[in-house]
């Protein structure tokens, strides 16, 4: 359990916070992990009170919108954040689950600057809104957002799944090769996506049921058994990806 002891004055880069990394460490070792605060090195213990240790189930209490890169490179375990988080949540994550009970900043589940691949496995659940380019260059895994998405959601996705319950901003799915963006509300599709059909995709029902029963995200029946328009794209790329937009029961 981590709880904020001193609110950071600047952006706190805390890419050391990952559930699988904590599994082999006691509270003192976790507190000694390096962070960068306003460009200066520090330790996690300067900002967070650490309780427990040797566990891959980690909880962060409260809002931490100034803390960035939480869960970066995480490969397993469960990380729950009781409030909002900063940008780069689950950056290049490879496994496990991150559950945010608030909003997340830009590039959630995305790729480090210059990297070809973002998230390569695991699940990120954001029970709120996300910033721009969530799920950018995702290779595998699933990002579910119960609120709205910013610009460029799933931009450059190679595979994997992004589910957005609210509005998705412009440029969603641009340069997508494979992968799926499931939009339950409005989505601004790039012109390089082409309509294929309207149907009941069986996997969407399975996915949404999993989110409801396995993850505890409230999902209405109308989405689980609903009809979806399928748009193939990005036709400027490989074109084997899709945007599935819910259109009714």
């Amino acid at each position, binding site marked *: 359990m981590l709880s904020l002891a001193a609110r950071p004055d600047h952006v706190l880069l805390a890419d050391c916070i990952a559930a699988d990394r904590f599994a082999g460490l006691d509270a003192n070792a976790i507190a000694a992990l390096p962070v960068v605060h306003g460009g200066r090195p520090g330790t996690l213990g300067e900002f967070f009170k650490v309780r427990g240790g040797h566990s891959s189930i980690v909880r962060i209490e409260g809002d931490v919108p100034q803390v960035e890169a939480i869960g970066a490179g995480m490969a397993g375990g469960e990380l729950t954040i009781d409030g909002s988080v900063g940008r780069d949540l689950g950056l290049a994550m490879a496994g496990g689950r991150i559950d945010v009970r608030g909003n997340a900043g830009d590039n959630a589940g995305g790729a480090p600057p210059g990297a070809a691949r973002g998230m390569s*496995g695991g699940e990120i659940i954001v029970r709120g809104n996300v910033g721009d380019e969530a799920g950018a260059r995702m290779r*595998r*895994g*699933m990002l579910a957002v119960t609120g709205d998405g910013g610009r460029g959601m799933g931009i450059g996705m190679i595979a994997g*799944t992004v589910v957005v319950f609210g509005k998705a901003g412009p440029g969603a799915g641009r340069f997508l090769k*494979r992968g*799926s963006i499931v939009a339950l509300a409005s989505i601004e599709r790039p012109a390089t996506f082409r309509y294929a*059909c309207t*149907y*009941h*995709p*069986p*996997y969407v*029902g*399975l*996915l949404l*049921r*999993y989110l409801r029963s*396995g993850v505890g995200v409230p999902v209405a029946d109308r989405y*689980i*058994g609903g009809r979806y328009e399928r748009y193939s794209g990005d036709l400027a790329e490989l074109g*084997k990806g899709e945007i599935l937009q819910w259109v009714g029961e």
Partner: protein
Amino acid sequence: MKINGVTIADTFAEAFTMRVARLVITGRTAKWAREAATKLTGFATSVIGCKCEAGIERELTPAETPDGRPGISVLFLTMDKASLPEQLIVRVGQTVLTCPTTACFDGLPDAPDRLAVGKALRVFGDGFQASKVIGGKRYWRLPVMEGEFLVEETFGMLKGVGGGNFLILAADADAALAAAEAAVDAMTSLPGVILPFPGGVVRSGSKVGSKRYKNMVATTNDPFDPTLRAITQTALPEGVNSVLEIVLDGTDAPSIEAAMRAGIPAACRPGVNTITAANFGGKLGPHHFHLRKILA
């Protein structure tokens, strides 16, 4: 031992180890799930001629299936590890993939032995298929003319039991059939068990090999054939003129025992003389179901 005046023979049913998979087939309606399951389990009565044994285990409510639709649970058995995936790939590909609205899921998720059935079927998608991982399981989405076929990548395989049985010895064919139907009704939908023969009943029980044809693996069970009573070493008591057999396959021995415990008393009806079982002196298989012990 007697039940309702019917003698329970002091003998045992001899069964052997098989490999078993459980498939969960769902559909838009129960009708379409059942259509696929019926076709999938067709011509799968005995490994002797069909290379596999299969049957419907039970119907599943939407709450019991992975995708929340009505479903059918099917058990599928073969004699060895290698032939189970072969049979599943061919049969699922021809009967479930082709059936409108259906999807196919693994019903043995905890089994460590995995059969790459969906992984093999995916190539029907001709490169347009896509995989998805949901809750740690990989599924394949195959584009088809109707829309999409969803199949789990792997299916679990366990050691199961094949060849559990009991014989109903009756005064006439009507009494034997009525008793067999009552037994099947009592055993239908019990977990972990299927009755692979038509209506769950066999009229042509067999013995191993042949007295006359050396290439035959199985031939008529002449000691139990009433028409041969006068010319063979019969096993039939006086007054028995018809015999029917119930064959049971299952995921494990306790499931078979539970089904026999339900089915045998149900078969003890008027006109039935004796309930006995087929065995081969203990040489065929390691599973021995002693009738009197089960019913005690």
